[in-house]
Structure formats: C-alpha cells, structure tokens
C-alpha cells in the first residue's frame, strides 16, 4: 500500500461520500459548542423543523462571555447574559453528551475542556464554531473551526462539507534551549511561513522538538496553526498522547481502552509518505519570541528589533508594516527590549493549561510585578486547571507577586467580558491574536509565552526570560 500521511488516514476514515468535483461529506465524531457561534445555528435548525442528528456528539460550555471575577454576582452585561442563557436553553431542549455551564466546576475554555475530559480522542473528527479548534489536532484529530452555518449543518447531518486539503509537514529538528517553549516554536513557524502560508493546507508538526513537547505544548502549537492560515494542525500519536488520556472521564477504559490504543498507535504518517510541502526549522536557533505588530507573523526574537519599513521593497508589505508601527506606537529599528508593558494577560486556549501556569509561576516566584505595570491577569483555562494550580500553590505565587488570580474563561483574549485594555496600552499576552482592537479598542497586544509574559510583568518591559531562570 502507498504510504499515507496522517491527514490522509484521518480523511479516509471519515469519508462518507465524495462528489465528482471533490466536495466530500466528512463524518463528525465530536461537536464542541459554545455560546457565541451557536444561537443562530440552533435557531435555524428549529425554523427548518429539524432535530440534531446525534446529541451524544455534543460537548458544550459557556466561555467567551463569562466574567472572570465575582461569579456570585452572575453575568452583569444583559446582552452577554442573554447569549449564555440561550445556550443553556438550547442544551436543555436538545441535550448533549455533557454541558459545563457558567459556574460549573468543570466549566472552561472550549478547547481546554475537550481534551482534559477525554472528550477529544485520537482519530476523531472534531468541529467547533471557533477557529482555534485546530488545537485538538495535537491528539491526531482532524479538527476544524467552522462557521455558524456549518455548525447548523453538523447539528442537522453529523457531517461537514469539505474538500481535501493539501498537506504540509513542518519539521522542527533538534532541541530548543532553556526558556524556549511551544509558544516560541509556533510563533517562529508563523514568522517563517506567514499568516497565509498555511492556507489550503493541513499542517502536520513533526521533528524531535515537537516530539519532545508535552500534550499542553502540542496543543499550543496546533492552536496557532490557524494563525498560519491552516484550518487544521496535526501531531502524531505517541506515548505522550496515550499517557495523557489514560483515566480521563470520557476516554475508554478496560478492553475498549486496549482496543482504542492499538488503533491510535497507527495514527502517524507512514515512512515515505509524501507531503505537498515541507518546511524545516532548526529548534536550536529559536529564541523567545515577541510580536511587535498587528498580525502574528509580525514577530521577532526578544533580542531583535522592530523592522524599518524603509528597508522593505514590496509596497503592500511596507504599507502594512508602517500601519502596524503607527497603531502599536513603535518606532522603526526600536529594540524589542525597550517596549514598555502596561498590562499582562496569562490565559487563553493557547496558554492557560497547568503547564503554562507552572512556567509563569517559575518566573514569578519570589519576584513582584513592576510598579509601572497596571494589572497582571492570570486566567486558568478551566475549573480543573484552576483546582490543580491551587493544589500546587501556584495561585499563592501569583498573588504574592501582585498578579490577579481569576476564574476560568476566554477573558482578555478577546475582551468580550469586562477584562480589556484601554486605548494605547501595551499588553504582554499569552493569547493568539494581536489584531487591532482584539483586546480592547486601541489596545496593543504583544504575543509571548507564559514565561515571557511573567518576565515582562516583573520588569515592566520585554526582557529575555532566559536571564531570569
């Protein structure tokens, strides 16, 4: 048999039918649902007199709109509250495998709760009305972010209309140095291939530096595959994957576990499988990364400088850099280490898992936030992460450092709740998007790893975390 890529294996095992023009119906195993992109889909379903095809595929939570403090006071913003209550009502009416509503002890960011409950399993197709669904590819899942019409389509038919993607292998060889994390790896990849570099591709991440990552790290990398334009990111199954899933609530057990593991072990690209494109990075050359602009590809090493538009030939690109520097309030050739920080956000589906909090705490331990830093928010990805962090005493480290310890949710990743930047403020953020206004109108986001964010909190500007370890 012809050697296959992991993507091809996943595609074939879910192909219900294919039309002559290549448009295919792909069967969906897991449907993650949150409050922002689902109300119109449920409404459409109802208007058409349809029922969900298989409610046991649905795992739902409220995360985008929920506040991260004063949970006892409920959701104050009436528009947000209506949206969350609409999800409550829809799940009540139609059902789900499980629902973690606002204030549930297992509530959290949709891309954190799926994996930690074993609701995301290798070999599945996973969809969610959220672009960062690519996160679940860390488990060798074919995971796609979809729009609301597609949410309705999956609810009604358990299938997604898709065309096969091209395949790209991003191989990160060698070993990263101390203080360099999964976040730095993926930012370096995006810096290399660009935010549209992965468009039309499913990206498999491989190489020794990826293999060495924990599941948390692999999720961080796959999470940002969408930031490189790819609709799906993938990492092959290995012992790390299996060990992570053992004993998780929705993972199989007993004989079913053994049978599942035997199958999961086949979920890797075969030796000699051909990719449409291969990109290779040397891990040892990657330093801690900081974005300086308004697109994740506008990124530099912490010891680097902001670019100078005058040295860029392509007029569209030059214009983009000029616009970004103006928005960010930075001058050409400015060293990254001179950019001041007003707020720090440690959280989001990219970096809010236990390992991320441990890395931030390692830097924060015994130090204090700089006086010039207005606020440092630490927002765990879920109730379970929060509990684990508290069991390890991490919250005490943060509180002693003058950081705020919050309830789980999306929070300042997209500022739909009360957590946001003021115009002109610079934020060291562990989230995934530095678009204009993303964290609050006029806010200036710099994407970094949790360790780099904690270091920025302590120093009041971007510093090389390697000097603090």
């Amino acid at each position: 048999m012809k050697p296959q890529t992991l993507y091809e294996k996943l595609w074939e095992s879910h192909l219900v039918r294919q039309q002559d023009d290549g448009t295919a119906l792909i069967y969906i195993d897991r449907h993650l649902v949150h409050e922002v992109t689902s109300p119109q889909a449920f409404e459409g379903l109802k208007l058409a007199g349809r029922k969900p095809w298989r409610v046991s595929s649905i795992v739902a939570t409220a995360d985008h709109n929920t506040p991260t403090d004063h949970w006892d006071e409920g959701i104050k913003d009436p528009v947000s509250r209506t949206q969350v209550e609409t999800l409550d009502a829809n799940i009540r009416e139609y059902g789900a495998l499980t629902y973690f509503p606002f204030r549930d002890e297992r509530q959290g960011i949709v891309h954190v709760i799926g994996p930690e409950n074993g609701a995301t399993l290798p070999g599945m197709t996973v969809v969610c009305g959220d672009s960062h669904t690519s996160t679940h590819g860390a488990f060798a899942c074919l995971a796609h972010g979809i729009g609301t019409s597609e949410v309705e389509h999956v609810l009604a038919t358990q299938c997604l209309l898709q065309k096969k993607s091209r395949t790209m292998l991003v191989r990160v060889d060698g070993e990263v140095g101390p203080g360099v994390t999964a976040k730095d790896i993926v930012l370096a990849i995006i810096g290399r291939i660009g935010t549209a570099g992965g468009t039309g591709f499913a990206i498999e991440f491989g190489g020794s530096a990826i293999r060495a990552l924990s599941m948390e790290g692999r999720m961080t990398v796959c999470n940002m595959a969408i930031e490189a334009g790819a609709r799906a990111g993938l990492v092959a199954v290995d012992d790390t994957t299996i060990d992570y899933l053992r004993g998780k609530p929705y993972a199989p057990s007993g004989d079913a576990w053994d049978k599942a593991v035997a199958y999961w072990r086949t979920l890797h690209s075969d030796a000699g499988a051909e990719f449409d494109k291969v990109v290779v990075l040397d891990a040892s050359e990657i330093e801690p990364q900081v974005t300086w602009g308004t697109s994740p590809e506008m990124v530099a090493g912490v010891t680097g400088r902001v670019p100078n538009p005058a040295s860029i030939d392509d007029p569209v690109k030059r214009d983009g850099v000029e616009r970004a520097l103006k928005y960010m309030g930075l001058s050409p050739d400015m060293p990254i280490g001179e950019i001041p920080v007003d707020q720090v956000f440690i959280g989001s589906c990219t970096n809010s898992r236990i390992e991320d909090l441990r890395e931030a705490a390692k830097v924060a331990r015994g130090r204090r936030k700089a006086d010039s830093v207005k606020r440092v928010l630490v927002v765990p990805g879920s109730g379970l992460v929060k509990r684990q962090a508290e069991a390890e005493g991490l919250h005490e480290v943060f509180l002693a450092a003058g950081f705020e310890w919050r309830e789980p949710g999306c929070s300042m990743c997209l500022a739909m709740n009360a957590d946001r930047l003021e115009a002109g403020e610079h934020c060291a953020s562990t989230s995934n998007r530095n678009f204009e206004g993303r964290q609050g109108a006029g806010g200036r986001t710099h994407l970094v790893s949790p360790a780099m964010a904690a270091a920025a909190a302590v120093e009041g500007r971007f510093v090389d975390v390697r000097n603090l370890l």
Partner: protein
Amino acid sequence: MNAFKLLDGLVAPLDRANVDTDAIIPKQFLKSIKRSGFGPNLFDEWRYLDHGEPGQDCSARPKNPDFVLNQPRYQGAQVLLTRDNFGCGSSREHAPWALEDFGIRVLIGPSFADIFFNNCFKNGLLPIVIPAETVDTLFRECVATEGYRLAIDLESQTITRPNGELVRFEVDAFRKECLLNGWDDIGLTLRHAEEIRAFEQKRRDMHPYYFA
C-alpha cells in the same frame, strides 16, 4: 440563502492586506443571538471615531472621513476590492453577515482566509480570487475613475471591466451550483441520510469508544 447570478455594481477599494474578522465586525457585536442587523457596525473601529456598542443608533455617531467606505463616491458599493488574506482570524460568520447586511455581494482579491471564504458562500456572497496583478489593475482603475463599476457573471465566471475586457475566475462547481440556485446545503446533504446512517453504523461497530 439568496441566489447569486449577475451583478453590475459600484466598486470600493479596501487597500489593506490581512484584514481580519475582528476588524470586519468587532467582538462586542458578537453578543447578538440574531443573524441580521450587523451592517451598521461593519468595520466599526475604522468607520467611526467613537467606540461602538451593540444597540446604539449608528446614524448619530461621528464617522471617520478618511475611511474608504465613508467617502461619498463609494456610497452604495456592492463590490469590495481587497488585498491578500482577507477575512483571516476568527470563524465568526458575523463577518459575512455584516458585509451582506451592508450591501456587499462580491469580494475580489488575490486570496481569502479559508473559513471566511467558506462562510461567504453560505450567505449568498461571492468571494472571487484572481491573480494579484489583475487585482492591482482593478485597484488602480477604481481609484482613478469615479463611479467605477464591474459586472460579475457567476454563470460564465467572468468579471467585465468598464472597457469591455473580461477577467475570468475559477469557482468550485458545487458552490457555484448552490449559489446560482440559492440552495440550502443541509437539505442537499440530508438527501444522503441513508448513506450517512450506514457509515455511522459501520463506524460505531468498529470504534464504539467514539460513541460512548
């Protein structure tokens, strides 16, 4: 879904690369549980000088005179010229809903982000990909000529420039068919319900742990 066949429309040039969905429709408007009414908040942060919140009367807000869609010559535009990677970022379908509600029916650019591109077709919007050089030409002509219009014919997959020259474009056969007829793809997919059920049963037998 609205069908799309032919359009002869006024063109507006949005000369930026990587226009993200946060810019197309900022997050505070995502709290709505409806599909309509997003047009007044399309490009909210670029279009207005103040900060917008849901439920506001936008007609009284101060407009940014420099933003292209605020210029008198582009009022009523139905075709938007864009640069690379338009629609990147979040999967929010509110972006095509806002464009459609504003009156845009066709987007022309060198590339679009994948989820956004998909979402357009579900909402009767036609995103057209043509080579960057041709996009450049259209930008130049559009800026130089007041009242610049393009005629888009989905059936024959052509854009007609004012001088009569044709630009051909590619479009996926299935999507074209759906758009021309205004078909709802859920209805189409449910015609294959038997096949889906059979597939599901087979999968359940082989991998019961996915169905727990």
